[in-house]
């Protein structure tokens, strides 16, 4: 077993950092079990817990006095009691906070849509803070007429609304050699699910006119990393969007404001944020992010490249290390399933480490290449559980175990780890990331 760093990097003080990190997670889990408390990156906040003065037969203050008026919060925020629901990062994973990643708190969410402020972030040179009046998209290369678009121009193309998940290819990448990060947010939180409003990339390309022989696009961001990838023309013409809204409002700065590429079902790195340029060509560019990174090193020392599609995957988000079981009796197991190749058709859940499985109840909309919510309602008598979930998609793909995945891919591929996750729930409800036989 080894510890995986997520950036070109490994911690010089790995052991101490890791100990700090794991201690923090553990403390958070235990506190959460006892009530609800916020902790963020080791900075403890004042605990918020129950207060009998507010409970029957007493009448709480909020029932007696006037609250804030309509002018107090022009842009609403979550309740202060939800302050612990935040993106978190793992400091030792990367050398800097600008070329780094944070994670969606999956265990705090329900339904299928990820709130804009909780969508995980992955930047290569920090966020670009772009004035939309100055933003330009240039389309050039093998086109009849190179074009330049303002945001107003882009918004005059026909618009489409689609819900898609975006998963970083490195999601669960730290788990290839065994259970490492003790939290669902950290093992699976590099995924989010958003309704995008945008225009078809196809329409924009056809406006410039695609020349015969054009097979690839280089898509490039306006950030200080100039994030660039090669995208096959076929995919560009099929279903990609240039999006300017997420969940109804403008893209968040950290998600590519004012314009990002949406590449349904494919690894997140291709979804170029702050997109400024599309060059049409006849071969891939072999950019750093599709050669040095985002290629999958196999056991024989060779590497798969252009592994674009995200394989079907699922995870139980509750219970999980940050969301232990609190009481015996009626409980709800819930989680998320997704596939980069189509709709999720079924999710199986086991409570005994894979000896017996049951079909979970899927609820909420099931969209093509979108997160899909599942539930298992069950009675817990305090017995130890080994909880797993297994996703099926409409192409017939069945999510493999980590053992099966390693048989093909070895342990050094970093990316595309879609193996089945196991949580050990102890008799006291405490939940832990484990691997089982």
């Amino acid at each position, binding site marked *: *077993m*080894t510890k995986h760093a997520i950036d070109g990097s490994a911690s010089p003080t790995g052991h101490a950092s890791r100990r700090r990190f794991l201690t923090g997670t553990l403390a958070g889990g235990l506190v959460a079990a006892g009530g609800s408390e916020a902790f963020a990156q080791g900075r403890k906040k004042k605990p918020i817990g129950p207060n009998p003065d507010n409970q029957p037969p007493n009448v709480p203050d909020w029932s007696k006095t006037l609250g804030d008026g309509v002018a107090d919060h022009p842009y609403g925020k979550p309740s202060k009691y939800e302050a612990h629901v935040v993106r978190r990062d793992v400091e030792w994973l990367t*050398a800097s906070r600008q070329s780094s990643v944070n994670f969606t708190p999956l265990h705090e969410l329900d339904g299928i849509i990820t709130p804009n402020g909780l969508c995980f972030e992955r930047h290569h040179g920090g966020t670009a803070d772009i004035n939309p009046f100055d933003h330009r998209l*240039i389309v050039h290369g093998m086109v009849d007429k190179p074009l330049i678009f303002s945001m107003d121009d882009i918004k005059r193309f026909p618009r489409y609304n689609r819900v898609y998940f975006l998963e970083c290819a490195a999601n669960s990448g730290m788990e290839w050699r065994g259970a490492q990060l003790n939290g669902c947010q950290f093992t699976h939180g590099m995924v989010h699910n958003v309704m995008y409003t945008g225009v078809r990339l196809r329409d924009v390309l056809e406006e410039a*006119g695609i020349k015969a022989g054009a097979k690839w696009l280089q898509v*490039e961001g306006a950030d200080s990393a100039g994030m*660039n990838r090669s995208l096959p023309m076929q995919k560009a013409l099929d279903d990609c969007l240039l999006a300017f809204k997420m969940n109804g409002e403008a893209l968040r700065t950290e998600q590519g404001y004012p314009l990002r590429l949406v590449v349904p079902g494919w690894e997140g790195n291709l979804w170029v944020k702050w997109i400024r340029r599309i060059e049409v060509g006849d071969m891939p560019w072999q950019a750093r992010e599709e050669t040095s990174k985002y290629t999958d*090193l196999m056991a024989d020392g060779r590497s798969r490249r252009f592994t674009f599609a995200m394989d079907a995957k699922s995870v139980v988000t509750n219970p999980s290390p940050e969301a232990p079981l609190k009481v015996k009796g009626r409980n709800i197991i819930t989680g998320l399933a997704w596939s980069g190749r189509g709709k999720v058709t079924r999710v199986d859940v086991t409570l005994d480490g894979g000896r017996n499985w049951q079909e979970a109840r899927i609820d909420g909309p099931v969209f093509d290449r979108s997160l899909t919510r599942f539930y298992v309602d069950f009675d817990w008598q305090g017995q130890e559980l080994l909880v797993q979930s297994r996703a099926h998609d409409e192409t017939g793909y069945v999510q493999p175990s980590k053992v099966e995945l390693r048989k093909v891919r070895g342990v050094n591929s970093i990316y595309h780890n879609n193996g089945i996750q196991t949580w050990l729930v102890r008799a006291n409800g405490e939940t*832990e990331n484990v691997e*089982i036989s």
Partner: protein
Amino acid sequence: MSRYPRLALAAALICICLPLANAGAGKLGLGREAKPEEIKAWDIDVRPDGQGLPPGKGTVAQGEPIFQEQCASCHGEFGEGKDRWPVLAGGHGSLTHDRPEKTVGSFWPDASTVFDYVKRAMPFGNAQSLTDDQLYAVTAYILNLNDIIKDTTFELNQSNLASIKMPNKGGFYDDDREQTEKHFWGAKACMKDCKAETKVLNRARMLDVTPDAKTGPRVD
């Protein structure tokens, strides 16, 4: 307020230009023709076949002081990587090892990628600040650190960069999951009495079985 006069001027210019360069080639008439100087200023990419390489030149020897001044504080004097910053050199033959070291020399398939990436994204926090001559020189120096260019007087330029042979050029193949992982499709999903017993093999919390982060693979 000062913005408006300029906007008005811009609008006037657009109005003059419109009849000449009317919008897109497509049926919607959206956008306007990009001017050659606009494209040139933003078109910074370089392909393995050399397309996109700007005029310029630089030697290994010229690259050394630039590297030491601009790059070594993160990547180390010899490209060995400081703290958690990427290692650029070494790792030859390590790709099948338990601890692969993926560097420019051991892993990157194309020399053009070094030029392309350094030009667009480096130095970290001061992107697009090196001149094209400096980029050729730094690229030559990084290739020298990896023993790919051995002669320190070697001059890398627009016409020879694409001919540099990288050691791991043949180490990549296109996604073959639909063939090599075909058994994941239509796999039998056992539902009852699937195995006799289950053992916990490893736990995230067992700190002593998780070795030091320094030896882990990298994801950035």
